């Protein structure tokens, strides 16, 4: 029985969330190609350089927030219902949070795109970070608020399902997928509180003229309180797939369920008290707090390094189950022509590279060299732009048949797509990293100046530009292939195919019975997470508000 037959209502929720996610990915990806061609000077015919920032805002919001969160909502709805073997309690409630997120996303997107239409009064050319005192139209902040509240309610839906299950199963360990969903959402509640305070108490009333000034450093600090954990909100659903689905795709089992739980607990504890590492070069923040954030950030490497071990060990187990032998012979027997498998593994490989450039970013003093240069988007296109995005696409190849009842269509396109994405990203990201070392800034329409010459440290600047433009174009082609496959699969059948895939997941080699029960004590971990945040943020935030909540103040400046 396919998932869609067992859980028809939940399958619809998963389908709609994934559909919105991938449509946002399509539009955001198109914007990405426009940027890659524009800023390198290869082709500037799509938009003017002033409108570049409208496109850039759309790219950031549609991909970093809309795509990732809807994909997460789809995957988590599937994971909770599958692992608890029960439906979400109320289809009406599920539709409510989905609709709220959708209305919020559309409101924000329309407000942003209004910037391209001079006759429309809407605009929000403030980028995904919307630093005050740059002001967007109030509808931008309202849209974001609805979107985030919708994501909170989605979490409530998953928690309710869990509580119902707990009522029937008082003594069982939390199934691994649900455990991952709950820890991720606890992290999300704690961290998105920062951006909620920023928007609701400061930016929204300020954009409406209800308060005259806000403190740019305070609002920026609140943003980054949220802005780093959001990175883990993108990554944890990818880890969720790597831990629970990828071992099966390789032909084996998860190596260790207990370690997977430890990893997610570490993310809950350490994702938030690190935000100052985005503000290493901000004035107004004492060095000591930056140092604390730096050490926390370094320890946040631990769960990712542990994941690397478990995931590779699980894949190796799969390869050996398929008959692979010798030290590396198991690599050959893996299903490299299976797009779901190839996508996840290539995403993991790029994440390893992104992890290393992230270590550089985290190094407080070496960060001076790369802060706000093209190095930084070079880094996060490996993490969110590949580790998350390619994993979600890979999961789509595997899940769309199960939530539609149709076999995967256009298999050949699907088979080459992850490799094409990988090649495109290799071109784009390596060149962006090197351009960053030369000091070429990020977030700009024309990084070519009369008064500034950039010296390439490794390779020449014009060669980097070509690689970025070529890589961006290949990525967009790969994205089109992906959209053809998933929407072709969805629309190309009547839901009655006999499927080659199913949602049953083999038990881990080392199961939850081998881990201490305290790992499942979510109240305890939430409390520890909050204590760590108070330690990291208590003093700096109280210092920032000591001279007045709105001082030193800035009036809104429309852009």
């Amino acid at each position, binding site marked *: 029985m396919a998932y869609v037959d067992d859980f028809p209502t939940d399958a619809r929720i998963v389908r709609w969330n994934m559909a919105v996610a991938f449509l946002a990915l399509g539009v955001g990806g198109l914007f990405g190609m426009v940027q890659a061609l524009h800023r390198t000077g290869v082709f500037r015919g799509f938009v003017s*350089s*002033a409108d570049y*920032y409208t496109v*850039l805002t759309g790219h950031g919001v549609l991909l970093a927030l809309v795509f990732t969160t809807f994909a997460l909502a789809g995957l988590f709805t599937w994971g909770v219902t599958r692992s608890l073997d029960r439906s979400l309690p109320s289809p009406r409630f599920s539709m409510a949070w989905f609709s709220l997120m959708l209305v919020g996303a559309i409101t924000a997107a329309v407000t942003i795109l209004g910037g391209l239409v001079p006759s429309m009064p809407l605009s929000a050319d403030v980028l995904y970070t919307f*630093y005050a*005192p740059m002001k967007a139209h109030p509808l931008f902040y309202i849209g974001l608020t609805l979107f985030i509240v919708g994501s909170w309610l989605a979490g409530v839906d998953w928690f309710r399902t869990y509580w119902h299950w707990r009522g029937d199963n008082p003594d069982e360990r939390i199934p691994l997928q649900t455990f991952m969903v709950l820890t991720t959402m606890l992290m999300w509640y704690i961290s998105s509180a920062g951006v909620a305070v920023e928007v609701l108490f400061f930016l929204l009333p300020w954009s409406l003229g209800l308060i005259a000034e806000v403190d*740019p*450093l305070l609002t*920026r600090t609140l943003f980054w309180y949220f802005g780093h954990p959001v990175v883990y909100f993108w990554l944890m659903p990818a880890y969720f797939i790597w831990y629970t689905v990828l071992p099966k795709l390789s032909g084996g089992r998860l190596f260790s369920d*207990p*370690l997977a739980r430890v990893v997610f607990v570490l993310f809950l504890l350490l994702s938030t008290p690190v935000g100052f590492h985005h*503000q*290493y*070069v*901000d*004035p*107004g*923040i*004492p*060095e000591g707090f930056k*140092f604390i954030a*730096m050490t926390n950030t*370094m*320890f946040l*490497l*631990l769960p990712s*390094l*542990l994941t690397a*071990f*478990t995931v590779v*060990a699980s894949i190796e187990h799969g390869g050996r189950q398929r008959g692979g032998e010798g030290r590396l012979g198991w690599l050959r027997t893996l299903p490299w022509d299976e797009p779901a498998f190839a996508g996840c593994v290539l995403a993991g490989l790029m994440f390893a590279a992104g992890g290393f450039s992230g270590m550089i970013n*985290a*190094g*407080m*003093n*070496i960060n*001076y*060299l790369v*802060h*706000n*240069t093209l190095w930084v988007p070079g880094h996060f296109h490996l993490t969110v732009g590949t580790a998350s995005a390619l994993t979600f696409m890979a999961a789509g190849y595997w899940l769309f048949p199960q939530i539609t009842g149709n076999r995967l269509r256009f298999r050949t396109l699907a088979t080459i797509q992850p490799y094409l994405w990988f090649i495109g990203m290799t071109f784009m990201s390596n060149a962006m990293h090197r351009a960053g070392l*030369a*000091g070429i*800034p990020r977030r*700009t*329409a024309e990084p070519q*100046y*009369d*008064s*500034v*010459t950039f010296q390439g440290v490794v390779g020449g600047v014009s060669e980097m530009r070509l690689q970025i433009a070529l890589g961006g174009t290949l990525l967009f082609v790969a994205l089109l292939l992906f959209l053809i496959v998933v929407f072709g699969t969805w629309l190309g059948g009547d839901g009655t195919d006999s499927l080659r895939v199913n949602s049953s997941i083999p038990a881990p080699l*080392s199961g939850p019975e*081998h*881990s201490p029960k305290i790992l499942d004590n979510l109240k305890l971990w939430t409390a520890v997470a909050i204590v760590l945040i108070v330690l990291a943020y208590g003093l700096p935030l109280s*210092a920032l508000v000591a001279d007045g909540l709105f*001082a*030193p103040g*800035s009036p809104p*400046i429309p*852009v």
Partner: protein
Amino acid sequence: MEIHRYEKLWTVAALLLIVGLIATVTYGAVGPGVTMVDDSGGTVDAQSLGDTEFSDPGVTQVDNNEYEVHVVARQFLFQPGTAEPIRVPANSEVTFYITAADVVHGFELAGTNVNTMAIPGQVAEVTVRFDEPAQYGIVCHEYCGAGHHTMAGQLVVVPEDEYDTEGS
């Protein structure tokens, strides 16, 4: 809880890497003395910079080889830096005080580790040694509005003897 022997080794190696990375940052701070931009520059009223030390931004000599440079970043220029280059002599220690008059900007000497945010209301204090004559591009690396990509400037380190004769 049962942990595979290889996994234990891997975890120990991971922890060593983490501690090692923290050690390199600590060494950078106490050895070569790389300090972070912090709150030492204090705050300022961004809307009345005319009444502050930023009323007439530019280069001031404070000691034999020590100079202060006040820079105001505003849409879409550095003052000084864009209309005329910032000029300092070689073999000098220069402390920059940088703030923003309108929105958030960035201040980066391209290809170096002189790199700070310019935030309205805050003053970034950055001390740099310039040993050799050179010419550096200044880039605003934080999006600041529709003309962001035009916001740039120059810093020129001139030979000591030439600097004296110019007076600057």
